């Protein structure tokens, strides 16, 4: 079957506020960068998919069509893709399906979200909390840090995972962000600084929590045969192909899931297994060179290692201490800085992960965060407390 290949990638800077532009301006920045990267003209794109989570955060319904016309893509088809935190990953998966089905031959995926200081942190928290159950979880004072904390405390009870092990993820990801010029919060942190940051919901402190970001990301995908015929000098550049896509779901309220699964992201495990089967991966730790995982909270990154089969259940904390997932480790995770250090702009996140993995596989990342010789990478994002999970595998497949 014809490979689905990545032709171009672009990012806007992720920032706590981008008052210098509106969301459609950031979208234009990311797409102009992706077009320049691809060498394509925008008229060569035959379909767009627009990934964003919240009409409330944007104060605008029907943004996708507005972005599409901002980019001069009318009268071509477009669609909005939405799945809370999994939005960007679901857009990649949809793009894969459009291209494989022959509905498109060259497709633009855009992810963007306005989560920065356009609204107060309290309002942003309330809007995100509205993606939990507004009849049952919101009225008792529920919020996302608390939901994740309830899962992590079970992980700590069951496996002895420590707050220091959580803090190490924050230190790693903020540290990696120092090597990404578009990252929101590059910072050299210590475990003690993370532990001393204000408590939000035990065990999570402020520096265990992902950022609130304004940002946009764009990826241009195409069928290889179309790219060979239409992209100038296609064969002279490194080629990155999307070789695996997995998606799975779980009960929206974590309390409704099987009781012994509270400390595990079951949907992520199933999504990973599906993506691995498609890409022919049986030993993820050995066969994957670099990964961007959904570190909405430090503990969510640890639970992702386990769900994605990087390590057995309960061992993510000690392995994290050994540095297995650091830039110099066996499987570097979140070289971009992730949602903790690079930034978290809901709909943009899953798309930005694909941008980072592509840069890594091309060998074009900043040398300080480039994983040497990376040939296969993984991106992973999820909604809610892993209600919807989307996992993708990218591989270097030069001609």
């Amino acid at each position, binding site marked *: 079957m014809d490979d689905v290949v990545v032709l171009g990638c672009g990012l806007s800077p992720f920032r706590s506020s981008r008052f210098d532009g509106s969301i459609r301006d950031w979208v234009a920045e990311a797409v102009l960068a992706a077009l320049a990267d691809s060498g394509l003209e925008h008229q060569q794109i035959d379909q767009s998919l627009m990934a964003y989570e919240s009409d409330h955060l944007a104060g605008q319904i029907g943004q996708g069509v507005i972005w599409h016309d901002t980019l001069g893509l009318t009268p071509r088809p477009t669609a909005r893709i939405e799945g809370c935190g999994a939005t960007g990953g679901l857009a990649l998966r949809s793009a894969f399906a459009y291209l494989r089905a022959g509905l498109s031959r060259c497709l633009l995926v855009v992810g963007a979200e306005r989560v920065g200081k356009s609204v107060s942190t309290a309002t942003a928290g309330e809007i995100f909390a509205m993606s939990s159950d507004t009849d049952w979880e919101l009225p008792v004072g529920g919020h996302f840090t608390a939901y994740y904390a*309830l*899962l992590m405390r*079970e992980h700590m*009870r069951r496996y002895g995972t420590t707050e220091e092990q959580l803090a190490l993820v924050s230190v790693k990801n903020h540290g990696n962000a120092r090597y990404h010029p578009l990252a929101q919060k590059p910072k050299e942190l210590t475990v003690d600084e993370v532990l001393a940051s204000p408590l939000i*919901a035990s*065990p999570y402190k402020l520096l265990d929590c992902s950022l609130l970001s304004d940002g946009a990301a764009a990826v241009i995908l195409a069928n290889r045969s179309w790219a060979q015929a239409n992209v100038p000098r296609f064969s002279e550049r490194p080629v990155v192909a999307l070789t695996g896509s997995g998606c799975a779901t779980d009960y929206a*309220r*974590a309390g409704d899931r099987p009781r012994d699964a*509270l400390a595990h992201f079951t949907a992520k495990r199933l999504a990973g297994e599906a993506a691995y089967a498609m890409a022919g991966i049986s030993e993820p730790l050995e066969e994957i060179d670099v990964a961007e995982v959904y570190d909405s909270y430090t503990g969510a990154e640890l639970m992702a290692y386990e769900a994605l089969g990087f390590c057995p259940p309960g061992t993510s904390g000690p392995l994290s201490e050994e540095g297995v997932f650091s830039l110099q480790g066996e499987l570097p995770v979140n070289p971009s800085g992730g949602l903790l250090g690079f930034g978290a702009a809901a709909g943009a996140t899953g798309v930005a992960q694909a941008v980072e993995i592509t840069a890594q596989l091309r060998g074009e990342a900043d040398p300080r965060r480039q994983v040497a010789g990376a040939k296969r990478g993984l991106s992973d994002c999820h909604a809610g407390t892993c209600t919807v999970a989307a996992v993708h595998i990218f591989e270097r497949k030069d001609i």
Partner: protein
Amino acid sequence: MDPKVKLELERLRADDPLGRSEDPFADFREVLLLGLEHRFRYRHSLGKSSRFFLALEEGVLLATRCERCGRVWLPPRPVCPNDLQVTRWTELSGKGTLESWTLCPRAPHYARTGEPYLLAYVALEGVSTLFLHQLRGVGPDALQHGMELHAVFGNEPVDHPLERFWFEPLEL
């Protein structure tokens, strides 16, 4: 500031966020900020879950039981997701055990609770799922996984019917 434009908050001059020597958007660095507000009020039905909330008036906790697979769901589900059978209401003892908890020093503004507050997953007697609610009358240091809890009903006026009860340790 233009006093004739009531929504105007601020005007400022932005820099190129990428700090390029030749800013391609040099013509577009004047910025005007407005203060916008939307207010929506919903006539929101609690639908087929309503009986749970109405029973709280009598100090009773209800859940839904599936006659086919025996699962008891709370929050209630009129249709069992396991086999899509229509369920029946069943009365609970209100007793349960502590499965997981978290201490939140600050409450979100919509929470209408004191600070700090504790949120917990409670394994209610006779229920297949875990129920999320507040723990009161106990500090975090006294909490233990598996400790016995019970639902306590308040008499104070509340906003949302879920606030009519919470959980406390059965004995301290």
